[in-house]
């Protein structure tokens, strides 16, 4: 027993330093690892700091005044009246939670006196005048992570000498995070029907909307209140399908104004690229609703747009645009059954009418473009047809300012509908001019 105790004591004496050494080594290793981590972290931070460039040795160009450093604001500074957007500046960039933009579009026209009398010009009732067609205030941005919103308020002179009217042009919410490649937009919108309908006046590639669009949808185009859904399926090629349900407020084509008999719209759009330089967009659209007389009205549209943009160019060299509309619409007509010159009863008559346009534009220089549009269109209700040639030239002093001048010749087969006040507008010659500007934010233009 004594021997065992002795051996145990000796063993403890021998192992104790070894165990202490092992513990020290482990602690040391941990410490080294910790130091390595700290070193790595410091190195990372140092790399980030080194990545910051030194103060720029820039000599500012004389024409573009270099922004000065903002001084500290005193109480007196804060009490001073502020300039527009002063609050925005002092809060710092990016603090305004949505974008604001203004687009102005002024147009003028010169035409014959008899056309003015008959109010048969492109800007009916505004012949031989210069006027603000559309001054638009746009507010747009994200509502939250799931939705964005756009509000556009427009002011413009709608009739000769009238006071400028202000109205809500668009206001809609887009739900961005729906599943299966879908998106919903609801509110008051410019309908995505064909190419030009959703383009605002100041963004159109011509001074005026194509005749066929004005004849079948009215001067303002198709603008409705309701809901639109789009689907972009995950395919190797681009295709967008759209379906919408609206009130049917458009008086020119529908006018039933009730969801009891809604206006239903649809569109299918695809896009093809031939290398980097050539691109084509093709689409078909449909809108079907009822007129105030509760009679059916359906319009089918087709569109095509081609652009040739040489490699490295900032703008397309050639742009071709075409659209067509075909309308099936029923009307009430008086029937004189016994031939006594007095209508005996109402009958329904279907009128199938159509029209189209083709425009070509060449832009050899960044600031200059010229083009020609040919229109041919019947009228949804009246007999006859009209055709127009419209050569034009555009000049952009900068990205935000554009001037355009055009000559438009219109020949009509009938006077019906263009003979107000004893005038006549069978043949119309017009000089059109336009000045447009953009102030502030403006979203990029789609193809």
């Amino acid at each position, binding site marked *: 027993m004594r021997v065992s105790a002795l051996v145990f004591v000796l063993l403890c004496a021998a192992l104790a330093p070894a165990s202490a050494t092992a513990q020290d080594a482990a602690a040391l290793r941990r410490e080294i690892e910790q130091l390595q981590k700290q070193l790595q972290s410091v190195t990372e931070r140092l*790399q*980030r700091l*080194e*990545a*910051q*460039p030194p*103060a*720029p*040795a*820039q*000599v500012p*160009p*004389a*024409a*573009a005044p270099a*922004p000065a*450093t*903002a001084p500290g604001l005193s109480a007196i500074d804060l009490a001073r009246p502020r300039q527009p*957007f002063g609050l925005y*500046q002092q809060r710092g*960039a*990016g603090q305004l939670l949505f974008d604001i933009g203004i687009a102005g579009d002024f147009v003028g026209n010169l035409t014959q006196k008899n056309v003015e009398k008959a109010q048969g010009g492109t800007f009916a009732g505004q012949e031989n005048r210069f006027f603000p067609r559309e001054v638009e205030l746009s507010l747009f941005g*994200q509502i*939250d*992570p799931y939705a*964005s919103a756009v509000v556009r308020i427009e002011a413009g002179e709608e009739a000769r000498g009238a006071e400028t009217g202000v109205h809500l042009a668009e206001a809609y919410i*887009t739900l*961005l*995070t*729906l*599943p299966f*490649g*879908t998106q919903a937009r609801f509110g008051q919108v410019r309908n995505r029907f064909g190419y030009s309908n959703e383009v605002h006046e100041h963004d159109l590639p011509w001074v005026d909307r194509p005749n066929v669009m004005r004849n079948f949808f009215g001067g303002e185009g198709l603008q409705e209140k309701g809901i639109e859904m789009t*689907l*972009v399926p*995950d395919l*190797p*090629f*681009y295709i*967008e399908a759209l379906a919408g349900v609206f009130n049917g407020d458009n008086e020119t084509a529908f006018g039933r104004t009730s969801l009891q008999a809604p206006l239903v719209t649809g569109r299918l*759009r*695809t*896009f093809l*690229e031939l290398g*980097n330089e050539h*691109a084509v967009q093709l689409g078909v659209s449909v809108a079907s609703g009822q007129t105030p007389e509760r009679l059916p009205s359906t319009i089918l549209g087709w569109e095509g747009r081609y652009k040739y943009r040489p*490699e*490295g*160019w*900032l703008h397309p060299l050639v742009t071709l645009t075409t659209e067509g509309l075909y309308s099936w619409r029923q009307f009430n007509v008086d029937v004189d059954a016994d031939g006594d010159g007095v209508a005996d009863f109402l009958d329904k008559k279907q009128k199938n009418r159509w029209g189209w346009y083709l425009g070509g534009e060449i832009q050899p220089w*960044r*600031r200059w473009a010229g083009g020609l549009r040919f229109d041919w269109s019947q009228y949804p209700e009246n007999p006859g047809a009209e055709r127009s040639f419209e050569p034009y030239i555009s000049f952009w002093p*900068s*990205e*935000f300012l554009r001037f355009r001048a055009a000559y438009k010749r219109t020949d009509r087969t009938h006077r019906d509908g263009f003979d107000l006040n004893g005038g006549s507008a069978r043949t119309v010659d017009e000089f059109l001019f336009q000045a447009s500007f953009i102030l502030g934010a403006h*979203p*990029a*233009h*789609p*193809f």
Partner: protein
Amino acid sequence: MRRAILILGAALAVIGPMLPAASAADKIHVVATIPDLKALTEEVGGNLVEVESLARGTQNAHEIEIRPSLMLKLRRADILVENGLELDSWAEVAVQGANNPKIVRGAPGRVDVSRGIQVLDVPATRVDRSMGDVHPLGNPHYSLDPGMAPIITQNIVDGLVRFAPEHRATFEKNRQAFLARLDEAMARWTRALEPFKGAKVVVYHPQWIYILSRFGLSQAATLEDRPGIPASPAHLTKVIRQMKEERIKMIIVEPWNDLKLATRVAEEAGAKAVVLASMVGGVKGADSYIAAIDHNVNTLAQALR
């Protein structure tokens, strides 16, 4: 039976090309707004990512036409890497047309790599368009300054990790390997431009301030009257006079800008107009991030000699 097989074969022939390859389907689909960010994402993501760029290197990144083909790329994206500072704000229109909730603003798949960048040319006073197409948030052309790559790649890693946290170590490793190669190249670039520190250059569009500052060069004037505004004859005369007086040897031109005009001005002033890659792929041979900076540094050094 034979008819059924024939129909099945024809259907497969039609549908087959539409289906993505299995290997591609496993990868993370990243779309970058500009080629510089595509190149850097490829460096960080390695084999785990498949990256496409919306803009091409020869284009002006401010003005990209919103084609539906961009929406198609974005439709399939898991992650969108954007430059920010309003350089690529056009991408928002394409995103809204792509119907892809993964990359809408505020979604985890949206990666703004300008986070943490010390932005230059930030206006501290009121700006408006009389100053031209100024960027209220500051100069957005930081991506081809090699000194910014550590921050940009860190932001890209953070974005990729949000989508695939299991690959964090790989992304970190790829990033470190890339930064090591960049460090070596940086030493070479610094040596090449060391003799020209303090030299003044004229630029066509004010998008070179980051790389010029990095290597100690200074921007004396711009050929554009103001950003985005074409030069007037009076402005060009002034620039030529300044170049002669200050013995400025070069005008830097972007691949998409008017080289003829720059050459004419340079000849008048007894200088050279040189084209630098404003983005990866902007000039021949600049097909990777380091190759693009190599081209720019070598061209600068030669022209300043």
